[in-house]
């Protein structure tokens, strides 16, 4: 197809604003799928995606569209993940497009994530078509939403398309606008090959499948390609497009989007944002914008049953086949035994990995408190990076600590501003901007330590604003902070897996909250158990779990010995599910307590 008849576009939307529904309608209208074939929300194929209503992996679907001008167009819809953890992937998906649909819910208005992604799109030079969705809802307020789009995103909304993706109203206008208003791709099929990797995943039958956008040149079956970042070469075995069913084709040319199979075994080789070029006739330079992914959030993963350690390693290896954005390395904890230190893009990413491990691999996991990576300058001048509390130097060796800081953008209604300001101040935030974007809609920009975000920030923001606040953030450097390591001691023994790094001013409250939560969660044992919080050698809080007084079985109904045995076996099995530290049995929930305290602090 000649380039003039190709349109590559993405859809930008906040969760639940209707991205998936609109995508489904587009597929339906262009005949890519019949209504009968439509499974609700075709693009969100992973179970987890469908349950959470979010898109984790990007997809690219090719549609054929006969426009009103009587000509056939090739429309490539590039679906993007919608969560802040995946903003780099989003930026690469956007870089593969010439235009984007900006969907805004007619009653909710613009949210922080929409805004962040819209800015990304603008920065990538994309043409944006505002689409106001859910106009059939009684609460729809189109003039207000238009005003918000103009105020916050800075787009002219005269050409905004009004639709109801649910009923299909206005959807044909969207297709026409894509053809008429979005520019066709540039680039020549004859120049040196430059293709952008914007997604990849592992298929057990075909190896790694790469989604790519060709900017220049032509990719053919049999071409020997080279990956720019690592110089590795591979032979192209198959090329194709998703319609959304995979259909193999012989070549992809500049301007097109499709998938490639090239005997790749490892997704870590196919880094998102990397450039594919022709090994025999390489391009002079790579496409711009490539970055190595950096983990932001770190936590230890352990199995409840020590015997499952190997199973956990195998599961992590399998997951990594499909997701090269998290890393893991063996670590050991005196309390929890052998496990893995894992790095994630963000909290959602961590939750997803954890859930997949438990669901798909049937593992019972203990996760230590998530933390961030600190730069610690020691008194001897050495500078180290610490993401694991167990590697925290002793206080006397530390000269200076810098912690990662994010710039958070929060959009909310005026009535919740008071509560949110209190929250961000409490979380050590520094105000950068405070702006009314409409009469009652406020945009706050704050610098916040990432450490304060990883525990419960998002949940508290949602509850303070009753759901009427949205958050987006990106890394914005580091600042110096007096952080300390807070240890928890059970029966006098420090439990390494419960240690956390906290700001000195919060250590006392956190310590108290933690030991009191632990006291509730640790069952009574045969002896009194002291639970203490300490900084270095100094104990800052203490609670006591009193010794158990009774555990007796009464009557033996009619000599039913097997019942007694079963009860004893059940009791024994219950203890086995706990982690024994020293002589104390600690249930799994106690390790999760670290994540939960602070909610009501």
């Amino acid at each position, binding site marked *: 197809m000649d380039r003039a008849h190709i349109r590559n576009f993405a859809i930008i939307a906040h969760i639940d604003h209707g991205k998936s529904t609109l995508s489904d309608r587009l597929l339906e209208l262009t005949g890519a799928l019949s209504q009968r074939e439509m499974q609700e929300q075709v693009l969100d194929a992973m179970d987890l995606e469908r349950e959470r209503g979010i898109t984790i992996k990007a997809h690219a679907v090719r549609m054929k569209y006969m426009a009103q001008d009587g000509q056939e167009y090739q429309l490539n819809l590039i679906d993007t993940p919608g969560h802040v953890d995946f903003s780099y992937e989003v930026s690469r998906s956007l870089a593969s497009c010439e235009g984007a649909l900006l969907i805004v819910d007619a009653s909710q208005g613009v949210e922080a994530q929409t805004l962040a992604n819209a800015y990304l799109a603008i920065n990538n030079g994309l043409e944006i078509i505002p689409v106001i969705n859910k106009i059939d809802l009684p609460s729809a307020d189109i003039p207000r939403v238009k005003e918000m789009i103009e105020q916050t995103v800075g787009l002219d909304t005269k050409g905004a398309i009004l639709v109801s993706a649910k009923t299909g109203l206005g959807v044909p206008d969207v297709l026409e606008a894509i053809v008429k208003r979005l520019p066709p791709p540039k680039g020549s099929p004859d120049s040196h090959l430059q293709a952008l990797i914007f997604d990849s995943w592992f298929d057990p039958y075909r190896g790694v499948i790469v989604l790519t956008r060709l900017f220049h040149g032509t990719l053919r079956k049999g071409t020997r390609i080279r990956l720019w970042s690592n110089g590795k070469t591979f032979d192209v075995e198959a090329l194709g497009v998703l319609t959304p069913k995979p259909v193999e084709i012989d070549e992809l040319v500049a301007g097109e989007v499709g998938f490639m199979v090239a005997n790749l075994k490892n997704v870590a080789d196919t880094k998102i944002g990397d450039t594919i070029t022709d090994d025999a006739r390489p391009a002079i330079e790579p496409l711009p914008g490539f970055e190595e992914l950096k983990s932001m959030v770190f936590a230890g993963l352990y199995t409840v049953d020590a015997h499952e350690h190997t199973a956990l390693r195998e599961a992590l290896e399998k997951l990594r086949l499909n997701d090269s954005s998290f890393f893991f390395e063996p670590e050991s904890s005196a309390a929890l035994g052998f496990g893995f230190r894992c790095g994630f893009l963000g909290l959602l990413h961590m939750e997803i990995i954890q859930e997949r491990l438990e669901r798909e691999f049937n593992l019972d996991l203990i996760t230590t408190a998530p933390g961030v990576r600190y730069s610690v300058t020691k008194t001897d001048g050495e500078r180290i990076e610490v993401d694991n509390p167990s590697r925290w130097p002793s206080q006397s060796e530390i000269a200076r600590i810098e912690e990662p800081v994010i710039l958070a953008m929060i959009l909310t209604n005026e009535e919740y501003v008071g509560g949110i300001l209190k929250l961000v101040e409490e979380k050590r935030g520094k105000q950068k901007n405070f702006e009314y974007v409409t009469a009652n809609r406020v945009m706050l920009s704050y610098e916040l330590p990432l450490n304060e975000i990883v525990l419960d920030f998002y949940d508290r923001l949602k509850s303070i604003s009753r759901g009427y606040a949205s958050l987006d953030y990106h890394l914005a450097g580091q600042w110096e902070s007096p952080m300390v390591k807070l240890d928890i001691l059970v029966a006098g023994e420090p439990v390494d897996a419960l240690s956390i790094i906290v700001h000195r001013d919060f250590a006392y409250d956190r310590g108290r909250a933690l030991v009191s939560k632990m006291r509730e969660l640790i069952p009574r044992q045969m002896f009194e158990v002291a639970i203490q919080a300490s900084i270095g050698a100094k104990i800052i809080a203490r609670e006591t779990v009193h010794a158990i007084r*009774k555990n*007796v079985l*009464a009557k033996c109904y*009619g000599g039913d010995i097997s019942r007694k045995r079963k009860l*004893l076996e059940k009791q*024994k099995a219950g203890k086995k599910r706990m982690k024994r530290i020293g002589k104390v049995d600690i249930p799994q929930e106690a390790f999760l307590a670290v994540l939960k305290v602070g909610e009501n602090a």
Partner: protein
Amino acid sequence: MPLGIYISVPFCRSKCTYCNFASGVFSNTHMGHYVDRICTDIVKIRKVATDHRAVAPDPVDSIYLGGGTPSLLPPDQLTRLFAAIAQQFNIAPQAEITVECAPGTLTEPIVQSLVACGVNRVSLGVQSFIDKEAASVARLHTREKTLADIERLRSAGIRNINLDLIAGLPHQTRASWNESLQQAIATGVPHLSVYILEVDEDSRLGRELIAGGTKYHAHFVPEDDLTAEFYETACTWLNANGAQQYEISNFARRGFESQHNLKYWTRQPYLGFGVDAHSMLPATEGAESVRLATTDSFEHFFVEAEIKAVRVSAAEALEESFFLGLRLNRGVHLDQLHEQFGPELNRYKPIITELAGEGLLLQTGNVLQLTPRGRLLSNEVFEKFIQEPASTVLSR
């Protein structure tokens, strides 16, 4: 080696909230069918035992009708039951014959029929002498009725009476528990059982307690530590008043220990009949034993004639010897266990040392006993004596 016979009578006028046993409220017609089925089983039990290479020895020196509420059985059904037993088994002249009775159900005709059947021991499920506490768990009697029942039994010649008390009932306080205990002692009965309320998913009250709710007076159940204190008070007072503790929950004047219940703790042979009834018999040879059991569902009981058998391995029998035998104050004799089970016993030496070190067990020569603290924490002790069940190793 003599034999015990247990008959399960799962009928009640109303179900107590703490009850975790397969009992319920059923019609008289049901009772007739139920006794029919038991009589059939009594006739065939020896053949069942032989088929499973087990021995049911002679003579019978204890019979125990437990419940439910056996005293709800009409006199003619009670007579049929005892006649069926007498027809199939030799009953020793001094046999202990116990029937569990709910206070307030012992009318004169029932007491007369008990005597006529040869019953010489009655166990009364008093649970509490405080009417409010009894009523809160759906017991239907009062202190007055209980005392009248005791008198009626004595007049009829039944002086070997046991009273059950439960520590940890809703509304119980130190004062009320002391009052129940004092009243129990004042009756002068030679045997008392003190149970601690069991909290599990099998009773309505237990489920409510686990859920933290307020139904069945669950929020008036005393704290664990207080209940433990009640139990300790009972041990002290009863021992001081001549009812010596001989088992975790049982106290008796010398010579009045329950012969039937002792069979359970010492793994002596017994046969059980009725719904969810269990038998324990020695195997024809070797150290193994055989357990027989009927279904635990009342509905299935009439349609499912089969009596299921499980062989208890020597290793399991040894575990049982510990977790049952240690319930008795006299404890277990390690030399006897060694004689019976051989070097397998050595496996337990480190466990015994550890538990003795924690003050839960006391070893004096060859005798191993629970300490008073060990009795209150006996499940923690017993747990150590059982192997992990294979089923906890999860398959993937």
